[in-house]
């Protein structure tokens, strides 16, 4: 085992939830997010022997696999189908008395809005809020760190406008 490479179990424990949240923000459906997350970790598990820590952080490596798996998912399903399912999975105003449940619904709604952003904006927001640096975000989506920052801020403003529009 590479001395710089943590046990895969640690990676799984530390990143499974974050990868799921990242994927969930892309596809807007929890069942699709589970399928893709499973695919990500199955692929990563098989490929971990070839992972070299000096070339990328485990985080960047895993999110690259997650991004590719998500893109494959979209390619397979087609954009129209994805939009249809995103709309179907729009959160509904559930009558749940617990404050926590309200919170979950609110966050679900926010992630659903993220899922409706244009692809690169969606990725910039999701990767950044999954804990990646702008440098890592830029490398993953193929642009400079500065360009990733600009893209992120444009995405944030677009999201804010979408949220405000829906509130009206």
């Amino acid at each position, binding site marked *: 085992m590479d001395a710089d490479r943590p046990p895969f*179990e640690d990676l799984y424990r530390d990143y499974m939830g974050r990868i799921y949240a*990242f994927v969930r923000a892309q596809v807007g459906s929890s069942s699709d997010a589970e399928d893709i997350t499973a695919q990500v970790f199955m692929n990563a598990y098989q490929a971990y022997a070839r992972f070299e820590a000096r070339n990328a952080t485990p985080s960047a490596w895993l999110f690259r696999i997650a991004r590719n798996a998500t893109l494959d998912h979209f390619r397979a399903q087609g954009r129209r189908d994805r939009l249809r399912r995103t709309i179907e999975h729009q959160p509904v105003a559930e009558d749940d008395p617990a404050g926590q449940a*309200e919170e979950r619904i609110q966050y679900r709604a926010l992630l659903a809005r993220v899922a409706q952003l244009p692809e690169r904006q969606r990725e910039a927001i999701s990767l950044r809020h999954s804990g990646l640096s702008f440098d890592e975000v830029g490398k993953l989506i193929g642009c400079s760190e500065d360009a990733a920052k600009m893209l992120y801020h444009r995405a944030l403003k677009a999201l804010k406008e979408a949220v405000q529009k829906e509130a009206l």
Partner: protein
Amino acid sequence: MNVNGEEDLELQALQRQLDDAFETTRPRPGFDDELWLRMQGSRPAPRRLRDAWAGLVQGIRAVPVVPASAVAAVLVVALLLVMVGRTLHLNTGGSGAGTALNPAQAPADRSLYAGSFGRVPTPAFAAPGLPSGSLPSSNQGSAAAAAPRYTWTGTFTLNIATAPVFRYHEPSTNAADQFATALGAVLQERPSGFLGSYTAADYSLKVRGTVQSPPSSPAYFIFSSTAMPAVDAAGAGPIDQANVFLAQHSLTPQWSYTVEADTSSDPVQVHYDRQFDVPGYGPAYLVRSDGARDGLQVSLSANRPVLASGLLPMGLDVADYRLVSAEEAIRAALAASGPAAGGPSPTPINLSQAEVVYVLVPAGDHSFYEPAILFTGTITQNGQTQMRRVLVPAVDPSQRTP
């Protein structure tokens, strides 16, 4: 405030919401274990055999060569300690004996008092103020922007000076096998990260030991096969169905609990939240490091149990430990606030309720369930009120390792 300043604040608020959304969005309970099982199952058989062999060889190599003189020295020290312990009438908390000190016997001088387990480890909690089950974000920039500022407006009195601390031995593969055998399940393999994987007529079972981070108790996971029948009980609600399933499979919890059902989604979740009895206080819930209650969960879909996951039954030793006062606990919770100066304005969070709870503190061969104080409060952002939790250790700092 000018337009740009106002927009900046709105964007900061949105960033905080996104942080929370990404930190708290997690798959359904049990998904991580199901996936881990699938991953283990996906390995080709020769590789599994090779890993098992490598693990065995590594285990043998890990046993150190101990000189006989060192063994003799350890035995002499152990004997002396036992004799001193008996002389001082200390409770030694025998393995699985469930012995307890009477709180009235606790010495008045708190600096000298220590429970019979010696100093216990200090629990590590998730970042304070997180809404629910998540590890602290590694996104430091955003975390700083979300630094909360706590205020206390509730009433909290703690009329007890001590509370029990529970300790258990890390379960072995033998213990896992015994548990599985009692249920009628047969050992299949020992996948990495688990004590054993077993099968029965209508389900598969996995047993896992303590997880260090995030702290998680030894647990079992039952995954129904397609042969698992629906619970046949006319007019029974989800809780009744879960009760029937647990009774049929000899899994009814032997500890105190409260039970509730979450029917907001499919599968329906029935939660059995474990409680510890604290003399002079009452029942105290076992919670995870993010403050969410822990115990046993049964997932039901179309009246059919699909997944059950719960705490592995274990023998607990017990010893009383001195607690902090209510005032000290409140100060500790408020001290979790973000920096007072510099950076963006801290988010005000109003803590208004507090209760004694228990948290798992993993510590190698022996782990502990220690009392803690769970503060809950609310935060209002963009006109929406949300719940926040802060956990602080309840065992007096002089009784804990730093």
